[in-house]
């Protein structure tokens, strides 16, 4: 399986957060920051947010909608949804293996 978010390297963190936030509907920059802070406890700085957003748009994983006043909402594309799913499934598998090995060697908490 090709993990298209892998191409982000050190930006795969912000990219995953952005795609996960956009998964339930379009949001503009500030709404994205607040939503990510709410569900992940991470406050993305504006430069990091837009660098990741630009890359996602460039790769066709996210698209910009018509601006609403000064703010432009962004929406996840079908390619973005599938890339996010692949990435999260790979992460999920990793989590399961890690927890299982921790459980067998160190006992469950």
């Amino acid at each position, binding site marked *: 399986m090709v993990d298209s978010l*892998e*191409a*982000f*390297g050190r930006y795969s963190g912000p990219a995953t957060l952005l795609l996960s936030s956009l998964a339930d509907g379009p949001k*503009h*920059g*500030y709404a994205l*920051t607040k939503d990510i802070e709410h569900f992940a406890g991470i406050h993305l*700085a*504006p*430069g*990091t*947010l*837009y*660098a990741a957003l630009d*890359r996602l748009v*460039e*790769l066709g994983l996210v698209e910009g909608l018509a*601006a609403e006043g*000064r*703010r*432009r909402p962004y929406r996840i594309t079908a390619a973005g949804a599938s890339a996010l799913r692949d990435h999260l499934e790979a992460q999920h598998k990793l989590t399961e293996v890690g927890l299982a090995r921790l459980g067998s060697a160190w006992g469950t908490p």
Partner: protein
Amino acid sequence: MSRQERRARRLLRWYPRSWREHHPDEFLALLEDSISERPFWPRRTIDIAAHGLRVRSAELGSAFRTSRRRVLIGSSASLVVVVGALAVVTGGFGVLGTSGPTKGQMPYEPGKIVPYSSVPDYVAVSIGPNMIGYAPRAYETRNSPDLAAVLGRPVPIFASNLKTLLGHEYSGVGFVPAGKSPWSQPCDPESVIVARPSGETVITIPCPSTTIVLPNVVGMVTPTGMAELSRLGISEDVLNVHSRTVLPGHIVSTSPPAGTIVHARQVVVVDNSVR
């Protein structure tokens, strides 16, 4: 103008104009919201400065793609002719069709940066006022501490590469007399034995008169993509480029791009991603 807006506009100046025009108000609005919410947040300034500078350097970088081409075949460089110092910008390069190699003067001007795209495939070499032939183009290596000097300096051409004006050597084609197209040359199809884990295979490299539609190898692991091109009879030259999006060792792009009709044995430049 509110205090937040003033601060936001000041931060925005870290980014180049082109980027600011691409995101006219949305980024400014986000910065103002961010400043209203957290007036004192040093990490925001550092973050904006770092990303702004990165966008700027990426813009610069695309203008200064330099290479490590395997061109200077001259093994024992008995004589090194400094082309740049002798060449004058004359324009009107002797271009052999749009898909073929170009030849002409090195577009060198003292203190000026020469864009990669303006350097012909075969550079005219002069000794004093007399042009004595053409040599494959060459570049200074990357990682130059002085970005402005990249390609701006004279490029040495080894005399052992030189051919007289009666004709010139084309990579993969051989010696072509002046006034003849390299694609019209008679040739013997070459057979090459390729060793693979599954055994040896013989592939036949067609003559330059054969045309090939360049396949899309972007995103492939560089050796795999190059093998694919070689299999079709295309020669490759590797250019290392920095990429933020393509994993190291993978192909970022080719020049000419996929879909272009090329001649067999024509050299296609493969941009290989490096950190």
